[in-house]
């Protein structure tokens, strides 16, 4: 599927803010075999004083900016053309979760896709007993890792209410879970916590969701904003699979990936002084249109 993607982020400040460094993670990733970026531009208004790019540890493209001082407003406009392929196999090649620990231990690799990064607690996803017992209660006996991913994702979709007002960007997973409400970020972080508690390495994926569904399909939740979902390492043979708990589906050609991390902190679209300044209003809008 070929998509035309437009993302606009606009911040307004009540009083002029000092210049500051920002990191943006908003551009779609080139993922051989899965996703191909044909064209991508990011415009910053007003123009940054300094601007450069680098890839972070997990391979996500980061735009590094220094903005001028005295801003009352700043805009980031990203436009891209992205070809996204459907994931290859629908066969469940994943391992039974009873075998997962040994398979993880056999991996002697610390590259960005190594499962070892995704099992220990991370900054935004500490160990949480409530989520762990929920995970245990919803984990089918003798299941494969893939089946556990699906069972947990469906359970969360059933038990959680999508509610854009209930949580903030900083709401801990435990709190969102206690209220059983939240947005894609909360669904994803809760699911990651649950999977890790069962010994399944799990990480956070940030990206986009097509705005207009294919003919005959319902419009998906989160399509008008940046989106997030989960990936899980399901064994030596199967490797990673991706699941969207907000929409209770495995990820395929309707999703466009920006990057991976252990939790929201690794993939936050904007990191920097704008995030901590209280007197601001930020809005973002997303259009992702299939062009063929």
């Amino acid at each position, binding site marked *: 599927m070929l998509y035309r993607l437009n993302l606009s982020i606009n911040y307004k400040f009540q009083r002029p803010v000092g210049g500051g460094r920002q990191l943006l993670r908003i551009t779609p990733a080139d993922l051989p075999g899965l996703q191909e970026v044909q064209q991508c531009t990011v415009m910053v208004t007003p123009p940054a004083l300094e601007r*450069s790019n*680098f890839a972070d*540890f997990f391979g996500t493209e980061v735009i590094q900016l220094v903005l001028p001082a005295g801003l009352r407003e700043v805009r980031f406009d990203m436009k891209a053309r992205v070809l996204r392929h459907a994931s290859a196999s629908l066969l469940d090649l994943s391992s039974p979760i009873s075998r997962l620990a040994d398979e993880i*231990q056999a*991996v*002697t690799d*610390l590259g960005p896709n190594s499962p*070892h990064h995704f099992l220990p607690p991370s900054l935004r996803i500490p160990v949480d007993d409530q989520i762990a017992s929920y995970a245990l209660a919803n984990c089918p006996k003798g299941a494969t890792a893939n089946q556990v991913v699906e069972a947990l994702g469906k359970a969360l979709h059933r038990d959680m209410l999508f509610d854009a007002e209930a949580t903030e960007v900083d709401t801990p997973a435990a709190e969102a879970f206690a209220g059983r409400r939240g947005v894609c970020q909360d669904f994803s972080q809760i699911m990651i916590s649950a999977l890790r508690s069962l010994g399944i390495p799990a990480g956070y994926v940030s990206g986009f969701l097509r705005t207009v569904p294919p003919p005959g399909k319902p419009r998906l939740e989160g399509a008008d904003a940046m989106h997030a979902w989960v990936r899980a390492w399901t064994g030596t043979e199967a490797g990673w699979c991706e699941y969207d708990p907000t929409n209770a589906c495995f990820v395929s050609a309707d999703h466009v990936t920006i990057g991976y991390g252990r939790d929201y902190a690794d993939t936050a679209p904007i*990191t*920097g002084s704008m995030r901590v300044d209280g007197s601001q209003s930020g809005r973002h809008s997303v259009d992702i249109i299939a062009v063929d």
Partner: protein
Amino acid sequence: MAGELAEGTAERPLQDYRPLPGVPDEMVDANGSVRPLWSRLAAHLASLTPADLSDNLARADRYLRDSGVFYRQYGSGISTERPWPLSHVPMLLSQTEWNGIAAALRQRADLLEAVMGDLYGPNTLVASGRLPAGIVAGNPAWLRPMVGVRPRSGHYLHFLAFELGRGPDGDWWVLADRTQAPSGAGYALENRVATARAFADLYADANIHRLAGFFRDFRDALLDLRTDSDGRVAILTPGTLNETYFEHAYIARYLGFTLVEGGDLAVVNDRLMIRTVQGMMPADVIWRRLDADYADPLELNPASRIGTPGMVAALRAGSASMINSLGAGILESRAFMAFLPQLAPELVRAPLALPNIATWWCGDQAARDAVLSNPHRMSLGPAFATGLPFDPANQQIPSSDLTPEELADMIAQHGSNLVAQETATLSTAPTLVNGLLMPRPMTLRVFLARTSEGWTVMPGGFARIGATPDPSALAMQKGGTAADVWVVGDGPVAEVSMLRSTHGAASRGNPGGLPARAADNLFWLGRYIERSESIVRLMRAYNVRLAEAGPGNAALLAGMAPLLEPLGIDPERGIPPSLLRNLAAAIGTAGAVRDRFSPDAWSALQDIRRSADDMANRVTPGDDAASALSALLRKLAGISGLVHENMYRFTGWRFLSIGRLHERAMNISALLAVLADPDAPEGALEVAIEIGDSVMTHRRRFSVATSRETVIDLMALDPMNPRALRHQIDRLREQIDALPAANELGALSPLAREVLRLHAEIATADPAALDSDALWELRGRIAGLSDLLTESYFH
């Protein structure tokens, strides 16, 4: 304190020294005889009468007190500065034993450097299965943004410390590796000076290796890491609330480096810069005393408020050298000790010369089996903890407290987060308890620094001495003490001086680059000291009149009220609480610039605050208060002398002076506006010249009676009177003109322009026109200088 003798102790300190059963002692052997190495010290101690011993120890304590050596102790939500807990008796090591330790630690340092290079580089140790992935990927100290970042200096590690203990068979063991930002080297230096004072006779000719050479070599090594001869070497501190802040300031002063906090640094075009009063200046080499995770809120811990956004980007760009590399803290995790012995033969081509404490990482099946089959004399704790094996903070559980089932269950559940370590036993060393020597558990902290010739080892160090025979009470936070370490040479040792360096002249040549935050603090320090003096002078005059209680005094006292209010003075109290607050604020700001502030002035400031606090509880208004305030005034004069006569006349001193002159100018304007007003009560003019310390001058200059005109002339307009407004403005103008960028290519800065205008107005003022309204207006404009100064220099 250990140095104080119990009442009536008549025995010699050594008389009852008995090693603990089954525990080796440093000073005496198993038969109870003093070892040859210790015989001189023991004989010296035995030769002292209790009174002499007490005097000698007091010399060391006095030195530490006068130098303001402290550490910060945390407890139940508050933290307090504590005097440095010196254990006066040094720990002795022979040259031969020392040489073995030093060589072994150099080898270990090379091993750690190799492991570090692999963990942040190709990761072959994990790929080949020699290190488990879990102890890296699950380790919070492995900082992913630093993976692949090559250190500009070519090395990841430059300054290390190792904790050593002596085991039951007399051999040394490494108990912990300190790679993050080791503290204690500065305290070791202060321990040395203090201990050398306590044992002055002995120290001079006992062939004890000196420490200065180590610091000189490391200073030179840091200067050599600069790529730009204008680049600065900065010591990065977490700030004044850190437990070892004293040491950061002390080392900065001792080595002549700039002390900075994260907020003093900024990253511009991927270069790390110091915000100074002269603008941005490159920071070329950073010796950090800050845990790496806090160094950059953008790419590391986003919750950090003490870091520098963009620090990681600057290091990625290779624009600065970081001592040690961000991420080096990972090697402190105890889990690594389970693997270092196997890695040594390959990475440093020899087995470890000094073993570390036996450690098993329970994420590994073979290790789990080993622990389960032989659980005696072991304890279990978190794999990534960095504390000493017996430190209660590690939540270490002795395996003997667990049933075999509990042990197996714990290992099965938390395997990869657990290490088992052999229970450490330590030797004991002598310390004075109520004037008597007692054996107490001891660990040794040894420091290594990288120079162009490789690792150099500080010939001495820092011994921790337990508060009780139980090794869990070694930590200072738990009452432990610190002793100097004397490496006793086989022959006379060379004297070393910090000055005998090729860099001496160069490093002294450039005292510029005053950090903006330091300038701000110095300015306010000047203001707080001056404001304290104003309050004291004002309240002395007030209380003298209160005591006289003559007719008309009530009106006069009421007439002074408009002066008290702006300074927050409550006249009902003999020592006004606002004075105590000002002195506390002065200490707070002085504490933040300890590296630039003379230790004598610091003690004087502490002393006056103690006196004022003490007086506040007992002094009553009137005569009592007047004489107490006179005493405080004399102490304040002493501080002024120490600060103004002893401080290097450079930018920092200027900001301090500006603060002082500025505050004084405002207070004189207000004083004259209130007390020289035509409607002021009878006697007000006399109060004004008394507070203005101008009684004698007035008598000499004007043989006529005191009048409004004579007072305005003498206290506002006379350039020769050091208390006059004119004099303050003259000096302010001089100081402001000499500030950086005050006069660039003939264009005056807004601050310089405003002070010039004020100066011209006062210099040409007509005494008759200088009425109260005009004086209040002047005071407002002088106050405005503070904003201009802040805008120009403190951002």
